[in-house]
């Protein structure tokens, strides 16, 4: 009886944890910043600098002078809607970034306003603290590519415990049946996200909600990013071909059929019975 009661307490405890998680008191929800600087660091820095030049997205120094404040607000609130609405400025930005659409950030109007204020004030400084990190220009060799492959395929665990890229993404050069198909194919990611500088910045603090959920609390190390960038650069030599999902379905069906056939031949006498076999044998003997 005592054992049951103890078990009951255990379950109640678990229930409390689930409730707390649900209310967002514990867990990744807390990663969202409280002030504009943190918001910028978490959400914008992977693609933008203030005075550090272009990454995937444009340099935001003086953006408030270039654009109307209302326009900026509207764009950040829902970039995709803006592009789809055919706004000429938005179309131009899309072209400049090589077709990468800025993700819609789950920030309220107040926080976006605060971000715009931040952009305005940082632009006035001679050197903003958001000018972007200095990306090393050390030449990347085959050793880096090999290390990157190890990280991508998960043979080398990530220091902070993040999931291997392979579980959700695929690249052309990985061979076999490829990697996961949950995330986009990364064969051309090096070109898409603005080369070494852009990709390095992006991997430093991934901005999309999915990546943030996965890597927000398990950030990549600088040397890991370097190896991955080298690997992705090497991948650009391949052409990206979409993998048909039917291959998996076909393989699954074929495998199931083979397994059933195997089990059937292993246990082919299971329905034969004793008497019937005996009578048949006697009939053959005559």
């Amino acid at each position, binding site marked *: 009886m005592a054992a049951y009661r103890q078990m009951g307490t255990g379950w109640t405890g678990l229930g409390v944890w689930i409730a707390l998680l649900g209310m967002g008191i514990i867990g990744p929800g807390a990663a969202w910043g409280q002030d504009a600087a943190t918001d910028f660091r978490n959400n914008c820095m992977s693609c933008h600098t203030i005075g550090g030049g272009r990454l995937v997205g444009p340099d935001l120094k003086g953006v408030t002078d270039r654009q109307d404040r209302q326009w900026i607000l509207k764009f950040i609130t829902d970039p995709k809607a803006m592009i789809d609405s055919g706004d000429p400025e938005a179309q131009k930005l899309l072209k400049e970034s090589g077709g990468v659409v800025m993700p819609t950030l789950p920030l309220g109007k107040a926080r976006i306003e605060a971000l715009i204020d931040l952009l305005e004030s940082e632009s006035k400084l001679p050197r903003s603290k958001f000018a972007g990190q200095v990306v090393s220009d050390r030449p990347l060799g085959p050793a880096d590519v090999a290390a990157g492959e190890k990280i991508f395929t998960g043979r080398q665990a990530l220091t902070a415990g993040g999931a291997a890229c392979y579980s959700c993404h695929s690249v052309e050069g990985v061979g076999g049946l490829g990697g996961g198909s949950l995330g986009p194919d990364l064969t051309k990611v090096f070109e898409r996200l603005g080369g070494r500088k852009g990709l390095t910045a992006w991997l430093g603090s991934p901005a999309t909600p999915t990546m943030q959920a996965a890597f927000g609390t398990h950030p990549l190390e600088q040397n890991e990013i370097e190896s991955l960038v080298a690997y992705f650069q090497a991948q650009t030599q391949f052409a990206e071909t979409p993998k048909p999902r039917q291959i998996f379905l076909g393989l699954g069906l074929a495998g199931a059929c083979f397994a059933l056939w195997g089990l059937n031949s292993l246990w082919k006498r299971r329905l034969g*019975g*004793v008497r019937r076999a*005996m009578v048949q044998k*006697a009939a053959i003997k005559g």
Partner: protein
Amino acid sequence: MNVRSQIAMVFHLDKCIGCHTCSIACKNIWTDREGAEYMWWNNVETKPGTGFPTRWEDQDTYRGGWEVKEGKLRLRSANKGYVLGKIFHNPAQPSIDEYYEPWTYRYQDLFNAPEGSDQPIARPVSKITGKEIAIEAGPNWDDDLGGSPVYAENDPNLDSLSEEQREQLFAIERLVMFYFPRICNHCLNPSCVAACPSGAIYKRGEDGIVLIDQTRCRGWRACVSACPYKKVFFNWKTGKSEKCLLCFPRLETGQAPACFHSCVGRIRYLGVLLYDADRIEEVALSSDENLIEAHRSMILDPHDPQVIRQAQSNGVHDSVIESAQKSPVYQFVKVWKMALPPHIEFRTLPMLFYVPPMSPVMSMRKGDVLTQSDQGLFHEIDNARVPMQYLAKLFGAGHDAKVRYALKKQMAIRSYRRAVTVGDIEPHIADQMLREADCTPAEAEAIYKLTSLCTFEERFVIPPMHREEALEMMEDPMDHKRETGFGVMDKPMRGS
């Protein structure tokens, strides 16, 4: 010493005429229900034959009983890995075809058929599906067919015979069969009890009857596999297993079980044995050759004062001890050593014993005439129609010494009685035969009396069952006042 009482049985095969009255008596009382039609808690097999269910003695197929592994007793049917692997389909049990598909005839067709040029017939219909069936087999399909090329030739006990012996066995001059009636052996070391995952099977403390609790049974059928005698049956209607209950409601009211009561040949004996329960494991671990002797040695002398004292201190009632002293089973098994357990190599220590059968008179071919053997009526037991190895496989775990002893004694008593009543055998020859068979004239008379002239009371020495001391009576009978009676308290979910 842990003395307990057990109701034990002897079937005298030399007296069985194979009339199946026992089976019918049992069926009428217990298994004439939907879901139980195929069951024969009592069945009579023709030997050599494959029996019911088909080849039940072949434990490579059915995995019944115990085996000795690394000095320990292990169930053949159940080690953890095996059970887990076969949890959805256990191949080590008989299908309905191994028993037989029970059928009846559509008798109404005889009356209702439209007028035509043919006689109407009653078609056979399955009692399971209700559809017409082609009858292929029954519970003793080759009844009385000694030389049947299908059922007799596939008797697992024939494996011990050489090719030549097998051929001889089926030669017309010595064609033979005998009857082998079987019920649950109510074993001392029951593998069905050990195998049950629900703990639904138990051996009654007061009389050793093995029963299945119908409210606890969950239909795993582990007992069906585990019983090497295949005497536990699965009721497909209620989803529970059932077995012979030795007519305990009859025993409790002082009546012999139905199959005993109705036996035309009076082959059945029933009485109490006292045994030492502490020795069960040790005895079951004996080598094949010593099994019978060890099994016998754990049966205790009910006249020994020490045994009586121990029995009393163990709660065995004085009237039960008194009954054990008069037990005909004790005489046949322990004193005369004529009754042997069937297939004791399955190591369940059966408490049903068989007096092995003598064979019919031997005949031989003289020209075109089939005539009696030169050796007269009572030929040597080694030249009997049923080969000694065959009986040894059935009743001696493959060793013939104990079977030979039992047959020799029967033979000597026959000669002795022949000398007394007919006088065509010299008395000194008969006496010499008795001496060689380890028997005295007094013992021979006693055996003769209990074999041939026995009364009802001598064959069935039923102890008072003392239900007033049984556990159920601890419950307050007034609990059920104004209810419909004791009855089944929890009805099974399906069936009735």
